[in-house]
């Protein structure tokens, strides 16, 4: 049976409509669970978060800057980045050299294969 909106991928199929229905069902379940919570609970009633004994920072100082995110990833990939980043010299003549280098390589391949 052909279901409308189905994308045929050759090896399988994908239907955004079914996905949206599934998403709506999951949302409905989440809403049901939430609606069964205590109606007398108000925001602000909760205890203060425990941050290893440190004081909770003020709201304005609580934002983590971008550089602190994925520090572990870049640290783990240090060997890769230490080789890749230096190629990005910012020097226009280097950029032209890369273009000519690829062109030369492709010329050799095209004329010999």
């Amino acid at each position, binding site marked *: 049976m052909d279901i409308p909106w189905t*994308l*045929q991928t050759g090896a399988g199929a994908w239907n955004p409509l079914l996905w949206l229905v599934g998403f709506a069902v999951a949302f409905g379940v989440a809403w049901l669970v939430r609606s069964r919570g205590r109606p007398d609970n108000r925001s602000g009633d909760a205890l203060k978060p425990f941050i290893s004994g440190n004081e909770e920072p003020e709201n304005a100082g609580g*934002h983590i800057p971008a550089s602190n995110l994925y520090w572990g990833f870049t640290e783990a990939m240090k060997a890769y980045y230490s080789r890749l980043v230096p190629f990005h010299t910012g020097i226009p003549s280097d950029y032209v050299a890369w273009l000519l280098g690829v*062109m030369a390589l492709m010329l050799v391949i095209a004329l010999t294969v």
Partner: protein
Amino acid sequence: MMDSLALHLPALLVAIPLFTAFLIPLAGRAGGTVRSALVILGAALTSLAGLALAARVFAGGTVLYVFGAAAPHAAIPMDSGGIPIRIIFQVDALGALMVVIAALSSLAITLYSLAAESRQSGKDGFYSMLFLLVAGVLGMVSTGDLFNFFVFLEISSLAGAALVAYRIDQGEAVEGGLKYALLSTVGALSVLMAIGILFAQYNALNIATVASRLRFGALDMIALVLLAVPLAMKCGAVPMHFWTPDTYTTAPSSITALLVVSSQASLYGLFRILFTLYGDLLRFNWAVFGWFLVILGALSAFVGVTMAIPQKDVKRLMAYHAVSQTGYMLLGVGVGLAVFADAGALAAYGKTAMAGGLFHIINHAMYKGLLFLTAGAVFYRTGTRNLNRLGGLGHAMPWTMVFFMIGALAIAGIPPFNGFASKLLIYESVFRFSPFLAILAMVVSILTLASFVKVFHSMFMGPPRAEFAGVREVPAPMIAGMAILAAFVILAGLVPQAFVDRMIAPAVNALVDRAGYIAAILGGH
């Protein structure tokens, strides 16, 4: 009247933006309101002409337009010795797909620019250059003539370089423009040299005519490399991508979004050269040139995304993602090219891979354009692109945040947005060619999501910051520009098969139907 207009749509496609470009300085003398009205009118008419032409092509097949001929379809004059000597526009389904991209993007970007550039001076020159860039892109994807292609490539490159460097109060912008101009000029010289080689041998500049006469000679192969490599560079393929972050970062955001479209016109040129111009000659070397695209694609996807993750400048980060996403397109079409000689593999997964690659071109133009516009909106209000300084903007800029989320989820390949649909086609077909490449493509998507989670957190999440206390949502024209692109991202994600059936599959068939392209001009010679 309407019939006559429809007949001349290919000419109007380039004439309208060119005419608007040259009229804008005059309109500017009459005041800002007149200039803005002309800009809106020019953008709307250009888009209308583009979409009408594309609809005609998708409904009725290739459209020919011979400039200066008694009848627009008379490709070969009686006394020309069988050579189509006039300038010919030949728009097949692949060209029409690119026209749709340029038409929609340019309309959204122009609307956005009206507000984004409202506080700047020199708007006459800015909009003139913008329309020249649009004309260059539309010409590149419509022409059936090699030298014409070079001319339009030059128009788009020079207008693009001027626009990148337009805000000369920023030294970086001038540097970015200079790099773009230098690389474009070196690339264009190479393209011109290749066209010279082909013209000297075959006494023709028409693509179909040269394709029909091409022999498997050393000079042809030299011309092929001189054409293909600079076009790969112009679309930002690794290891020739270095100009991309430098240029995309410093250009005004609306221009960066348009440069993405311009890069994709170069990608169109690359595919046109490989499949249409050189198609049969590569029959013994399909795999070699297919692997050339596949390797460029895989390198671009992985290097682009890994270079994006540590960036602190939001536009530089997005520029590296543009490199990465181009990798998907090269990968998809490269797999199709690599198995072109194997009819079984081509039918089983090669065409699907190409469909994924071509679908990703239009999807990428829309969501990446949208992302650059959201970055521009944030810069418009805060004056900074530094992710370390930004934060908490979701409170003051809710529309921009929603548009950013749509673009970010689409580029990361999250359903039900359009990026997922084209990536799914690529994953499943490339897996049958090489499981390693398919897994690499998926890993790149995961890293893309991680990168955009970082951007989302850094720009929009967190409590409001004191230094951005006065920030509010951007003006309505900027929201309208972003909304047009966001609407496409959602629509193409919800009904992808409709896009594949009506636009992408015909474009794939046009790309592989070299004989059909030649026959449209030479009548089956």
